[in-house]
C-alpha cells in the first residue's frame, strides 16, 4: 500500500518525528485544568484615610467596589477603631476566572493615638491562616477556599520626607506574615524629581530598619528579552508612585482616566505620569508568585509555629502538637 493511500485511510495518527513521546504536552494539560479551576487572590490595602486606596483599587480592576460609599466625618472617626472590610469580585477574561477579594482597612492611622491600630489587621491575617490550617487538616479537603492574604499594598503618604514611625512599625509587624508592597499614594502631589528622591529615601529607610518587602524574582535566563527588560524596569521602580481615578477626562481628543487640574490632566494610565500601569503589570504577572510565597513561606512559618504551640484552634477544636517522639514513632510504624 502506498504512503498516500495509508495517510488517506487515516491509519497513522501522527506523522511526526520519531522518538517523540508526547509528554511535552503536559504543561498544556495543567494549563487546561487551571483555566477550568480558576484563581483566587486576596489583596489587602492598608494606609491612612484619604490616600486614595479605594480609588486606586477601583482603577486597578476597572470596577466599582464601593458604590455607595459615605466618607465618615471627623466625629465618627474619633470613635472608630480599625475595621476589616472584605469585598469579592469575579473577573473573567478569555475564559479564565479570577475571584479577587480586596480587604480594606478603614480606620487605620485615623485615631489620635494610633498605638494599637494594627492588632486588628494582624489578627485578620492570622485568622485566615488558622482557617486554612484547619481546613487543610480536616477530613474533607475537596473544596478548600483560600482566603489567605496574598499581598498587602501599603500606602505611604507623599507629603512626608520618607517613612513615618507608624509605617515602620506596621511593616515590621507584618513583613513575616504577608508580602508587603509599598506604594506611594497620590503621586501627582510630587514632581518627578521629588518622587525619585522620596523613593530613594524610602528604600534606604526600609533597608535601615530591616523591613522585608516583597522582592520580584529575577527573570530566568531563558525568558525572552522583552520579559527580562520588563522585570528590570519593574524592579527599578519600586516603590511604585501611583495616581488613581474614577473619572474619565477628555484629553488630547480621547477619553482617559485621569484627574483634571487647571494646569493639565494627570493620566492614570500614562507611564510618564505615574507608575500605575507598572503596579498593575506587577500584580498580574506576579500573582502566582505572590501566592506561592504566601503558601511556601508565610503560611509554612505560621503552621510550624502553630503546631509547636498546639492548643486550642479558634472555635473548631484542638490541634495536638507533633512531638519529636511521635514523629519517630510514626517513622518506625509499619503497616501490618
Amino acid at each position: 500500500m502506498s504512503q498516500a493511500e495509508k495517510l488517506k485511510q487515516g491509519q497513522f495518527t501522527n506523522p511526526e518525528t520519531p522518538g517523540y513521546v508526547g509528554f511535552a504536552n503536559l504543561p498544556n494539560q495543567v494549563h487546561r485544568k487551571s483555566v477550568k479551576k480558576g484563581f483566587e487572590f486576596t489583596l489587602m490595602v492598608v494606609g491612612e484615610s484619604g490616600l486614595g486606596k479605594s480609588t486606586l483599587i477601583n482603577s486597578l480592576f476597572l470596577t466599582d467596589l464601593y458604590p455607595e460609599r459615605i466618607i465618615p466625618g471627623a466625629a465618627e472617626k474619633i470613635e472608630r477603631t480599625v475595621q476589616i472590610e472584605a469585598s469579592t469580585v469575579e473577573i473573567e477574561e478569555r475564559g479564565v476566572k479570577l475571584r479577587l477579594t480586596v480587604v480594606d482597612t478603614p480606620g487605620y492611622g485615623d485615631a489620635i493615638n494610633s498605638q494599637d491600630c494594627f492588632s486588628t489587621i494582624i489578627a485578620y491575617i492570622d485568622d485566615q491562616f488558622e482557617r486554612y490550617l484547619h481546613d487543610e487538616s480536616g477530613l474533607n479537603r475537596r473544596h478548600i477556599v483560600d482566603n489567605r492574604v496574598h499581598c498587602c499594598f501599603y500606602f505611604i503618604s507623599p507629603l512626608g520626607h520618607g517613612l513615618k514611625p507608624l509605617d515602620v512599625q506596621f511593616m515590621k509587624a507584618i513583613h513575616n506574615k504577608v508580602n508587603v508592597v509599598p506604594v506611594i499614594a497620590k503621586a501627582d502631589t510630587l514632581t518627578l524629581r521629588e518622587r525619585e528622591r522620596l523613593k530613594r529615601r524610602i528604600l534606604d529607610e526600609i533597608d535601615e530598619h530591616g523591613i522585608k518587602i516583597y522582592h520580584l524574582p529575577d527573570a530566568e535566563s531563558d525568558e525572552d528579552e522583552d520579559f527580562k527588560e520588563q522585570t528590570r524596569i519593574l524592579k527599578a521602580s519600586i516603590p511604585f508612585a501611583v495616581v488613581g481615578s474614577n473619572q474619565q477626562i477628555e484629553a488630547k481628543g480621547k477619553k482617559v482616566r485621569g484627574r483634571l487640574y487647571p494646569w493639565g490632566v494627570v493620566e492614570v494610565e500614562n507611564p510618564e505620569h505615574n507608575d500605575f500601569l507598572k503596579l498593575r503589570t506587577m500584580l498580574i504577572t506576579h500573582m502566582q508568585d505572590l501566592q506561592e510565597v504566601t503558601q511556601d513561606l508565610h503560611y509554612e512559618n505560621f503552621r510550624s509555629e502553630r503546631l509547636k504551640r498546639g492548643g486550642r484552634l479558634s472555635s473548631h477544636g484542638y490541634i495536638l502538637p507533633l512531638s519529636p517522639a511521635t514523629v519517630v514513632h510514626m517513622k518506625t510504624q509499619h503497616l501490618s
Partner: protein
Amino acid sequence: GGDTPRMGHFNSSLEDHTRDHGFFGYVGIEAVLDQMRHKAMKTGFEFNVMVVGQSGLGKSTLMNTLFKSKVSRKSCTPDYEEKIHKTVHLQSVSHVIEEKGVKMKLTIIDTPGFGDQINNENCWDPIEKYINVQYEEYLKEELSINRKRRIPDTRVHCCVYFLPPSGHWLRPIDVEFMKRLGKIVNIVPVIAKADTLTIEERLEFRDRIKRDLEAYEISVYPQKEYDQDVEDQILNDKIREKIPFAVVGTDKEHQVNGNKILGRKTKWGIIEVENVAHCEFSDLRDLLIRSHLQDLKDITHNIHYETYRVRRLNEIKMNGIGLSPLMLVNSGSEKDDAGNHV
C-alpha cells in the same frame, strides 16, 4: 467583624484600554497562566507507573516502547536474567527524561513473580502494601511540622494491568486483583501481545472483558464517578468504549515504504506498533501520556490519596490520643481537655 464578602460581578474590558505604551499597554489574566506554565516546565514532573502481569506478557518491552527509551528494569540491570521469581517482589527504576524543555522523572515499578506460581493466592498483597506505603510516606511528610516545600511523590499514579490474550474471559486472578486494587489506585487494563488475536477476536474479547468488569463491579480508569463536567464525560466515554486497549510492544525498527517504523517482523507481514489499524498502542500512549497524564496524577492525589488519608486519620484517632500526630479533635461532642500535648 465585618468580614463577610460582598459579591460583585464584572467583566473586565481591558481590551478597551489597549494603548501604545509598549509592554504595559495591555496586561491580561492570561499572563498568570503563562507564568504557571513556565514554572511547571522548570520544576518538572514526576510520574510513577506500575506494571503488573505474568512473565512473558511483554511488560518491559511495552514500557520501553511507550517512553521510547530503555526505561524498564530489564534494560537497566546488567546481567539481567530471565527467571521466574519465587515470590512477588517489587523493583522500581527511575529515569529523568526530557522533551522540548519539559523534564519528567519517570519511575517504572515492576512486579516480577506476580501470577507466576502454581499457587497464586494473595500474590496481590505485596503490591497493595507497596501502594499503601507510598501513601503513608506522603502523609507523614504532609503532617510533619517542618515539611518540605515539594513533597516527593512516589505514589503510584497508574497501574497497567496486563491481560494475557486468551480471547476468553477474565481469569479469577484478574478479577481478584483488579477488584481489590481498583479501590486504591488507577488501573489501566491492557490486552497484551495482541498480535495473537485477529481484529474480530479482539473485539469479542474486549466485549466479554467489559461485561465481566461490570458484573464484578471493578473500577478501572477513567472512572465514571470522577468525571468533572460534561466535556470530560464525553471525552472519557469515548475512552471507556475502547478499553482495554489491545497492545503490541517492540523496540525494533523496520523500513516500511521508505519510513522507519516500530514493528514486529514476521513471515506474514510487519506488525506496525503505531498503526491504529494494527493495534491500539497509540491509544494507550495518548491516554497515559499525551492527554491524561495530569489527570491520572490528580485522581491519585485528590481521590485515592485522600481516601487513604481519611482512613488513616480515623484509625489513629481511634487508637487513642496518646499516639496521635497532628490532627483535629472536632469539638462538639468530644470537648475533652485531655490532649494538649503528648
